[in-house]
């Protein structure tokens, strides 16, 4: 709802606005949806002027239909697919992370979500030489582990690993307002440097979204909604792929299965959801094997499952004999 202001369109003067406001027409929606004959009588304004203003307002504020072929062309030219560095994860995501979309990773504590995030940041930065923004809200970002992964991938090239580290920007945001300002900053920066090639930001990794939203759930605040909207907008308009982590919280009391936190309303936000689980039954069995299964995807059949090994210097497919190297 946009408030009517002088100068919003030619023909909308300050006096007109005052008179309209006196008759409780304050926003564009009120104006456009009201009966103009009625309004012109009550406010003693010219009917023609009101109709002209309405036409301009509708042209300014309504959405334009686009045809499917144009959309497809635009999508083909603007979308990039970023491989995650792990072939089995790429297979799950239909060859990688798509820009303009959000992918979500969920899992129980200790299932390896931060490891997967670090590995994606490492491979995008090293392999594709793109900039990555890592929003850390849990304090789990460990630069030495990231360096270890980069060293393993870069095959002993010191400068490659350290220049890859420089391309990864880490912002520590521990509360929802800080996260919203960080996202706003990304949007502003990207809109300003629309065509420049220095520092192209293509991936935003958020670890984790639920850490900032959880303290608000059940309360009366609407920051969760703003965050949802902010993330989607950023992904779509800035051509950035967003990889976010949510946490699994509750056990469904009827089935005893783990289900994602943040509830059903959040499930509409990401386009792809991946569930990460440990292969061992409980914490007594220590293992580095994890299974990733697809819970929601626009392109692949759900229920697809692949195996990952987070113990090595990289997130990879498990080799038949688990090596004891690494950490």
């Amino acid at each position, binding site marked *: 709802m946009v408030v009517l202001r002088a100068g919003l369109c030619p023909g909308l003067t300050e006096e007109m606005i005052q008179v309209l406001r006196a008759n409780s027409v304050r926003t564009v929606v009120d104006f456009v949806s009201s009966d103009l004959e009625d309004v012109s009588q009550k406010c003693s304004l010219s009917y023609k002027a009101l109709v002209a203003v309405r036409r301009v307002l509708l042209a300014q504020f309504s959405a334009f239909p686009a045809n499917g072929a144009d959309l497809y062309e635009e999508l083909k030219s603007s979308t990039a697919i970023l491989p995650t560095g792990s072939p089995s994860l790429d297979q799950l995501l239909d060859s990688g992370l798509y820009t303009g979309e959000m992918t979500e990773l969920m899992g129980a504590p200790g299932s390896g979500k931060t490891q997967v995030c670090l590995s994606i940041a490492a491979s995008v930065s090293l392999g594709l030489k793109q900039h990555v923004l890592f929003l850390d809200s849990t304090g789990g970002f460990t630069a030495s582990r990231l360096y270890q992964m980069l060293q393993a991938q870069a095959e002993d090239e010191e400068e490659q690993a350290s220049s890859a580290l420089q391309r990864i920007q880490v912002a520590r945001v521990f509360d929802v307002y800080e996260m919203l300002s960080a996202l706003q900053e990304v949007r502003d920066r990207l809109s300003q440097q629309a065509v420049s090639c220095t520092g192209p930001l293509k991936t935003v990794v958020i670890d984790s979204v639920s850490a900032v939203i959880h303290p608000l759930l059940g309360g009366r605040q609407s920051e969760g909604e*703003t965050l949802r909207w902010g993330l989607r907008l950023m992904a779509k308009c800035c051509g950035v792929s967003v990889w976010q982590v949510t946490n699994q919280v509750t056990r469904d009391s009827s089935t005893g299965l783990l289900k994602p936190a943040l509830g059903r309303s959040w499930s509409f936000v990401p386009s792809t959801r991946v569930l990460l689980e440990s292969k061992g039954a409980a914490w007594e069995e220590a293992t580095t094997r994890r299974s990733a299964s697809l819970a929601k995807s626009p392109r692949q059949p759900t229920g697809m499952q692949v195996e990952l090994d987070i113990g090595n210097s990289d997130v990879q497919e498990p080799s038949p004999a688990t090596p004891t190297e690494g950490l």
Partner: protein
Amino acid sequence: MRSPLPPPPPRFRAPLRAGPSAARWRWGGGGMQRAVGSLPLGPALRARLAAAGFQTAQELLDTGPCGLSREIGISKEEALEALQVVRQECSGDAARTAGGAGTTRKCTALELLEEEQAQGFIITFCSALDNILGGGVQLTKITEVCGAPGVGKTQLCMQLAVDVQIPECFGGVCGEAVFIDTEGSFMVDRVVDIAAACVQHCRLIAEAHQEEDHQKALETFSLESILSHIYYFRCRDYIELLAQVYLLPDFLSEHSKVRLVVIDGIAFPFRHDFEDLSLRTRLLNGLAQQLIIIANDHKSAVVLTNQMTTRIGQSQSTLVPALGESWGHAATVRLIFHWDKSQRLATLYKSPSQKESTIPYTITPHGFRDVQPPAVTQNTESTEMNPRKRPRREEEK
């Protein structure tokens, strides 16, 4: 709970502005297009702004305080405060976009790596545990220790409160400790034993190495100084605990040498007498975020202890950490202490940089220690004869 609005500024003494037509501030950058929903204002105020049709921060600033108070029916002082918050947020945004330092904690991964490599660890005096943790308890992270009653969680906390004070020349971080006790299990005489053993250990090292800075550090590292640098708080219920944690940043800015915050028994106040489980989850998550902010801003380690509870499954029941699944995400590093017949074991269950593993440990009168291997029977000395020594047996007379 912590209100999203910063503390109200002192009474605004500058002359009030004339109204919407007053001089407009010109800002560069898109920070002005920030949606009203994303600004840290109270929910009631935000609801009124939405109902009145305000969408972006720019519109709010253009309207000015008089216009705003008239439009949405709040007092002029409230309107001024709200606009101050908005202006602060947007100027912060503009500074950040322009590449200024800003207040967000933002840096490249390379800088973080250098910071991490320069950071110390808090050792536990049990070398096996230090190894699986990657050097010891890490600063700027939350470590959670879970275990059944009597397995040694409070002992480890007391040991860490002493170990954080070890001077840097002996390999410590030379910091102070805050101990928040909710269960009443802190025993001062036990801390005296642990501290005495620690001082003795350092004295032995100093004697072996005979360096000047070791001698100087030993002068200040004594039993009295150790005990005087442990700040002890006793919280009897969850409200006192929450209040203490939210007031901790002020305490820590006065005592800037604190490097360890221990909360012994985070489960206890939240587990009994809590009917509303969703409120409990919300409070715990808010607490976790506050602790992460403390750990990060003051470069200190936060250590929490948690109880265990039984999860009854279909065919068997397992012991799992208490406070539910969502609490499992709060801690960065999770250690589970358990028994195996009569041996105490520690398992590293969750860590961002170390592998899962299990080690044995023991608790001695001196504190938390490694398990000593059984005395190796004296093997025969080198059987090879030293050629310069010849057997004298026959020649001795």
